């Protein structure tokens, strides 16, 4: 019998090494430690006596971990007051990841908000193996677009949509991405962003019979696969273990994908289209 007992998972307190402001609402926090993660996996960050929350891994290379975080509520507000040298707890990496095949010739990545972060790492790996990457980003305006410089350095084809037209096409990333899918021949489409955006692209991929992968965020209390808070209606599977990254085919079978998620208490909360 294997002996799995003795595994210990507790947050490791690490000082913030560097903070980079990406946009008005997003900062990237760097730590002096690599975690050997794969793109799409996430960490759980602890601020003592505040809370513990999941964040996708934006950077995990050259001895550094970076998390790109949007300020949205009590935890992230507290974090945004932190300076270099302040301690936060980290554990992970957790969850499934985006899968890239060596034979892929051309892929599309669609990132909304902080969803751009894990895809940037994926893009880096794709370009390194000779896959052509079209990278579609959307935001309200130019100054809210994430990782422009990083994506240039990686060498992707940036395709951009802003609602106010301040950069790229005027309009939504969804329309832009779906147009690309109609125009181009992609081996796979990778999507990470607000769930309603994700859903529209996943549905379009299905219609066009294009493979896609998507990250499904659910309320997470543990990341251990125990609390059940992240279980999704449909398969009942845990988005912290079997997810967050799934195939588009799988996502569409989940009755709650693009429809609702569960709050901290387990009450259903429906998604509202505010785009």
């Amino acid at each position, binding site marked *: *019998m294997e002996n*799995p*007992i*003795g*595994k*210990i*998972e*507790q*947050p*490791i*307190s690490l000082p913030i090494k560097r903070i980079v402001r990406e946009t008005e609402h997003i900062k990237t926090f760097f730590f002096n430690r690599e975690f050997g993660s794969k793109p799409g996996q996430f960490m759980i960050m*602890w601020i*003592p*006596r*505040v*809370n*513990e*929350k999941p964040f996708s891994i934006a950077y995990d290379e050259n001895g550094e971990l970076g998390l790109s975080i949007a300020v949205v509520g009590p935890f992230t507000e507290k974090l945004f007051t932190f300076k270099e040298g302040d*301690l936060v*707890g980290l554990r992970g990496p957790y969850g499934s990841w985006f899968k890239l095949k060596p034979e892929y010739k051309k892929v599309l990545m669609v990132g909304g908000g902080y969803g751009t972060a894990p895809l940037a790492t994926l893009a880096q790996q794709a370009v390194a193996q000779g896959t052509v990457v079209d990278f579609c980003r959307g935001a309200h305006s130019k100054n809210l677009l994430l990782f422009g410089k990083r994506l240039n350095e990686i060498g992707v084809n940036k395709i951009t949509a802003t609602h106010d037209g301040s950069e790229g096409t005027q309009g939504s990333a969804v329309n832009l991405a779906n147009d690309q899918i109609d125009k181009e021949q992609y081996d796979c489409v990778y999507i990470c962003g607000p769930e309603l955006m994700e859903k529209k692209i996943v549905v379009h991929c299905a219609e066009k019979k294009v493979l896609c992968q998507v990250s499904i965020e659910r309320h997470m*209390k*543990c990341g*251990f*696969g*125990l*609390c*059940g*808070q992240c*279980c*999704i*209606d*449909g*398969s*009942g*599977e*845990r988005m912290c*273990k079997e997810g967050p990254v799934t195939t588009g085919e799988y996502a569409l079978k989940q009755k709650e994908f693009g429809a609702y998620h*569960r*709050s*901290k*208490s*387990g*009450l*259903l909360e429906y998604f509202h289209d505010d785009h």
Partner: protein
Amino acid sequence: MDLSANIAGLTLKNPTMLASGVLGVSRASLKNVIGHGAGACVIKSISLEARAGHNAPNIITFEAGAINAVGYSNPGVDAAKEEFSNLKELGSPVVASIIGKNADEFAEMAERFLSDEFAAVEAVLSCPHTPGYGTLAGQNTPENTEKITKAIRKKTDLPVFIKISPDSNPIGEVARAAEAGGADAIVAVNTMGPGMVVDIQTGQPILDFKMGGVSGPALHPIAVRCIYDIHKATKLPIIGCGGVTFGKDAIEMMMVGASAIQIGTGIYYRGIDVFKKVTDEIAEFMQRKGYNKLDGFIGLTHKLEE
């Protein structure tokens, strides 16, 4: 070989059950767990009102098990009633789990929540880390155990399971009180402690509630002793719970008197198919020893004393 288990009129295709509070937050998650081999499931405990529970960290693991202070997060009785419907289709019996601040609340929960969707109801008198409930509300004394059991008994025809604390002392008396109150089975045990882990880099207790109930391997020998003691004290069937990770852990519990066992933290160590793995390991043991059914060794430790 017959691996089926019987407890208080329920028949399970195998003796492994999902413990309350682990995964069973939705109908879909129960279905998934049953698909991985659980002979029965207990849902996450439900209270009258929705509860957000404690802030995270809610669970940590340490050298010897897990410590949790989830704080009974649940959507409340009305939402839960909607969530847990058409349960008979799931292929294994589903047991309701209810909590209350006192006997009246338990009675109200029984009345409003229970239906024949459920195969039984488990009443939890034993959480060590939620103010107002369980051991923190003194629900684990013999008097309160009897009182609460009676209150629930009046409101339902389902088999009533009383889930007790390993810190009950003497535990046999608590079990006898449940029996006197009309319980059909004892679930032994809930988490122990509470325990605390401090992050030495900051001096801060890691769990947001600072302390939480200890489960997993650390709890197992104590759970086994509790079952042993309860078996001596009452004739009620016992469902063992606490640190079942391998088949051998389940077999130990059955030898000291358990008719079936529940698994929570074991999912962390062995994956969601721990139910199938443990069942297979029990079957292997029976094969080697020539047992045809669980009754061959349930209570064996006590029989050897006669």
